[in-house]
């Protein structure tokens, strides 16, 4: 019995040493031993092999249409054109009111089309994959294909849950505790130049460890456009992991609400070493206060660039939703960043209504890996005669274009709330002007 415990202790010690030597030290100093790359290569080859296998067996040369094609082919005409068409096929010429029963058809059809498929609600669930990636969670329509595939799938489960997950959880734990300890330690130093350099180093190191903890492969593009001090960095939001992704390559000041519990501990620790902007819950309601604090932070050229996600909520990384104008009213330099995850390898979207934070993190740790691309866009300023909303839309379009995402005008808040009544009035107004406008012209004849 005692031998068992001795052995277990020895195994634990070796495990930790290996971890520190092979993963943490490279992470701390920013070089790589090539283990992750090797893993990714094997993974990509396995997934390609799986796709080929599935294609061979199911005989479906045409795979499922991607989310952008959708279920319905819609008519391209405008309201006026279609209503004209409908009315012109009436056998009798119109007399009296220009209202035709047939006009209902158009609206009914549009209504049914939007019930079957609409641009917005599909953005709040995970992206559909074209081909299965050997994870249980994405197994929607795929049935038994072959023994080999099932075997690989089984091995995959074992590898992910018994080898990778404990490894990743350990790393995450080490990373976060090191963040707390490191930042608190740096916070004790007086304000030398060294302090800033050390604080940055500690932050980046911890985020690197966390990124290794998710087997994240991040590719940064256009690094010459990286956000500088005294500016605001805006990015599209898919999950809390976005922060880890961006902070791997630089230091940012975070903005957010003060939480209790574990996150509160992290927040307080981080603030000790370099200034972040944390708000109390009551303060968040006061827009002027928020704007003032952000402006103060930005105007101090020594402080790190602020990281803001203007969408306000997590979206599923196929589109970019409306940017809230608050951060664009400050008049600071905006550094847009586009983040795009590769859904084949691991789905990063946090569906907060479906999974809690802990559940979500566990799912992340049991995926294959995380692959994402980060594009730093050129800096943008608010132009003459452009108001905050237009500026926000301009930045949003630039981000959507770069990341290959759909640019939507809808508000991400629709995830939780229902659309407002005035939307209906827009269409009503357009239709009435058609009916009444025609009416007055026929009366004048």
């Amino acid at each position, binding site marked *: 019995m005692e031998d068992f415990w001795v052995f277990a202790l020895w195994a634990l010690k070796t495990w930790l040493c290996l971890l520190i030597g092979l993963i943490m030290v490279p992470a701390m100093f920013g070089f790589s031993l090539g283990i992750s790359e090797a893993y990714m290569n094997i993974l990509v080859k396995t997934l390609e092999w799986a796709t080929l296998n599935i294609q061979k067996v199911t005989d479906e040369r045409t795979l499922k249409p991607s989310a952008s094609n959708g279920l*319905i082919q819609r008519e391209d005409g405008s309201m006026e054109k279609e209503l004209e068409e409908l009315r012109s096929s009436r056998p009798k010429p119109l007399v009296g009111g220009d209202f035709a029963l047939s006009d209902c058809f158009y609206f009914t059809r549009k209504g049914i089309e939007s019930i079957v498929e609409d641009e917005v609600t599909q953005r709040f669930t995970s992206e559909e994959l074209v081909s299965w990636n050997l994870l249980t969670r994405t197994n929607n329509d795929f049935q038994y294909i072959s023994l080999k595939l099932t075997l690989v799938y089984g091995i995959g489960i074992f590898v992910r849950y018994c080898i990778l997950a404990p490894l990743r959880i350990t790393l995450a734990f080490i990373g976060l505790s090191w963040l707390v300890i490191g930042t608190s330690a740096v916070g004790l130093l007086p304000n030398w130049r060294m302090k800033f350099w050390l604080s940055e180093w500690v932050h980046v190191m911890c985020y690197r460890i966390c990124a290794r903890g998710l087997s994240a492969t991040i590719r940064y593009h256009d690094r010459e456009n990286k956000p500088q001090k005294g500016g605001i960095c805006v990015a599209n939001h898919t999950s809390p992991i976005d922060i880890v992704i961006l902070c791997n390559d630089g230091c940012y000041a975070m903005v957010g609400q003060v939480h209790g519990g574990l996150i509160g501990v992290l927040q307080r620790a981080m603030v000790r070493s370099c200034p972040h902007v944390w708000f109390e819950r009551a303060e968040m309601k006061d827009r002027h206060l928020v704007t003032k604090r952000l402006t103060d932070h930005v105007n101090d050229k020594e402080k790190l660039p602020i990281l803001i996600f203007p969408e306000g909520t997590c979206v599923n990384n196929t589109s970019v939703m409306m940017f809230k104008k608050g951060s664009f009213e400050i008049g600071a330099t905006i550094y847009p960043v586009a983040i795009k995850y590769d859904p084949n390898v691991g789905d990063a979207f946090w569906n907060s209504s479906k999974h809690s934070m802990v559940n979500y993190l566990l799912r992340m740790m049991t995926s294959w890996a995380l692959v994402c691309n980060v594009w730093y866009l050129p800096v943008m300023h608010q132009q003459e005669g452009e108001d905050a909303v237009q500026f926000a839309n301009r930045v949003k379009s630039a981000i959507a274009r770069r990341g290959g995402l759909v640019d939507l005008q809808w508000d991400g808040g629709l995830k939780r709330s229902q659309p407002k009544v005035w939307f209906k009035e827009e269409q009503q107004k357009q239709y009435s002007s058609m009916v009444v406008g025609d009416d007055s012209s026929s009366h004048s004849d």
Partner: protein
Amino acid sequence: MGALQSSPGQPEYVDLKEKTGFSFSQIRVLHKRFKLLSHNGETLKRDHFNSIPDLACNPIRSQIIEAFFDRRNFRQNGEGPVDEIHFEEFLMVMSHFKAPSPRMIEERESVRREKLRFIFNMHDTDNDGTITLEEYRHVIDELLSLSEALEKDTAKSIADAAMLEVASTSMGHMEPDEFYEGITFEHFLKLLKGFEIELKMNVHFSMMDTPTFCK
């Protein structure tokens, strides 16, 4: 309907395929949509439709939503409204909007009747078999805006004029004191005789087993 496994050939899907004419892949996609709208519940309520922003833009949204909860559209010869629907009923209502496959003339005629019946039911809210002036006026009210540019009377006069036209079409010449109760389904059919509604009132579903009937 229990936990439907989404692989083709499932008995529930076979049943639905026969009843509604959708293909397996279409049923699968629509079922996913149903689950999304109902937040993974078994039934869909009126409230769930309110979360679709595109639908919020539609002036006759409430009529369209009511149509989903109207037993007359479930092809089971029932009547009256229900409070919640299962996937089967959802699919039944959707099937009214399928394009007809290129088949014989008699099929087309019955498809036509069916689609027109759907629209008729949408207007005839009190379920008495006729569209009265009140019901007609109600639809026009919904379609037209409540902005100041439009006086209240305009909507009323448009409705009256349209009803008059309908009356003269279906009943020929009317005595001044004759009262026109409303549009019956037969009148409705006569009114819209020229329309090729089986072509115009379709939602073009892709991924069909049978070739699409193009306009």
